[in-house]
């Protein structure tokens, strides 16, 4: 599902964010990406989402070499993956329903399909009764679940998350991770960057560790698969 081949990333005027990285994540895997701040976790995710392009090497996502995705094809490419952010990135002036509906609207779904799918996604994250609310009237944990509902509403085969539990207490964090595990059971590939080592250890999925842009540990392909 994701393959990094000798990928290096150097930011202009900055140091080496990633140095010659090789990584293979198969479809259906649940992978944690760990490491201290500045290790290159976010950079790796950005390369997957085509927010950044590699300085060297190739990144292949869902069979597509990101090098070959032209700028104007990037929106189409991004519709093929769901993204969850630490700060949710919800639109404050739109209701929970409208936020979750946005990816479907962009992809041009029919109205009744949108209604059905948004209800289902909100149901799945346990927020069916919050549809008409504005995001800022919800708790942080609930806002993150809205973000997750938006990421999965168009049923992408791949979900990436950057510190999705960064702002949550341990109980809520576990709840969010259990939600991710349910998606994984349904066949979604997950790549989650986190520094919450306790949680990672507790859940026992495959763990890829970065330090200073280098791969220093990988519990192995298929480790801890459900």
């Amino acid at each position: 599902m994701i393959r990094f081949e000798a990928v290096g990333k150097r930011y202009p005027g900055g140091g080496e964010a990633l140095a010659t990285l090789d990584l293979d994540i198969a479809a259906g895997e649940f992978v944690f990406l760990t490491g201290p701040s500045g290790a290159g976790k976010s950079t790796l995710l950005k390369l997957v989402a085509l927010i950044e392009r590699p300085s060297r090497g190739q990144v292949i996502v869902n069979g597509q070499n990101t090098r070959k995705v032209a700028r104007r094809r990037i929106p189409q490419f991004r519709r093929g993956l769901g993204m969850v952010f630490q700060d949710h990135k919800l639109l404050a002036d739109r209701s929970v329903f409208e936020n979750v509906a946005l990816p479907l609207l962009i992809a041009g779904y029919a109205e009744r399909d949108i209604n059905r799918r948004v209800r289902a996604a909100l149901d799945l994250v346990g927020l069916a009764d919050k549809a008409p609310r504005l995001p800022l009237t919800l708790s942080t944990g609930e806002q993150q679940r809205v973000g997750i509902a938006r990421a999965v509403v168009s049923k992408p085969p791949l979900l990436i998350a950057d510190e999705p539990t960064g702002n949550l207490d341990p109980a809520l964090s576990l709840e969010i991770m259990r939600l991710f595990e349910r998606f994984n059971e349904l066949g979604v590939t997950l790549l989650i960057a986190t520094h919450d080592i306790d949680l990672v250890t507790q859940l026992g999925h495959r763990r890829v560790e970065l330090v200073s842009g280098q791969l220093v540990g990988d519990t192995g392909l298929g480790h801890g698969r459900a």
Partner: protein
Amino acid sequence: MAAPERRGGELRRGAPGLLTRVRGYFRLHAQNLLGSLGRLARQPLASLLTVAVIGIAMALPAGLDVLVNNARALSAGWASAVDFSVYLEPGQPLARAETLAAEARGQADIVAVEVISAEEALAQLSRFTGMQAALEALDDNPLPHTLVVRPRPGLSAEAVSRLADGFESLEGIDLVQLDTAWVERFLAIVDIARRASGITLLLLGFAVVVIVGNTIRLDIENRRSEIEVMKLIGGSDGFIRRPFLYGGLWYGVIGGLLAVVFNASALLALAGPVQRLAGLYNADFALQGPGLTGLGVLVGGGALLGWLGAWVATSRHLRDIEPT
């Protein structure tokens, strides 16, 4: 939601078909059209100021155009109202004058021809000028026979002038006097005003594009994070751009409507004095408004300029916003 059929499924499984997407496309347009109007309404003061500036910028050239058109309509009436005098060569008999008059009366563009004989002319002259004594001292009458020709009303100044030239080339005619020089001068001034209104139109049209462009640029700045989110979840450039384009369209349309209101008020304010002035000249003249066409041009032109301004702003600034 994620049904078992999706397990290991391909990327686009469950993606909407072409017809659905086309229908969705038009629904999006409709939603954007109303949505961007709602966005304007949520900042009533800022929107009102922008729209007022656009309205004024559009009302000025449009108002000038109305005035110029009225001046042209007015002067067209004057030009055709001018009679001209045809003087026969001295020594031509009165019979020749009568023949020419009879021929002239047969022309479609001439409604009346009056023959003033040399004797009548002399009598009039002595009656009006008080030079009776001086005139009586003359041995013979120095005045020629004269035709006073009245062209058909509504004839253009050029046609009247051509008509007069036609008399000049006839046998036995000494001079044709057509006093339209002042009308021509007036028309020349009107033409300058017309050109000036064209220049104003260009400049202020450009101003409208700049105003809308700048407003949309600020709007884009204010919604930077929203645009980033849209790009992150796969919003195409067109999708992100559309609400801004409709925003520009609304600015232009409402500005155009406001310009119509401004102009109508100005016409209303001018109608009374113009009526009075026309009354002093015994003229039957009333200011003509721009009419439905003018309204359409203002609103349509506003829409076009607003859309253009938004298009320029989005082309320049949306591309710069990328998620990081």
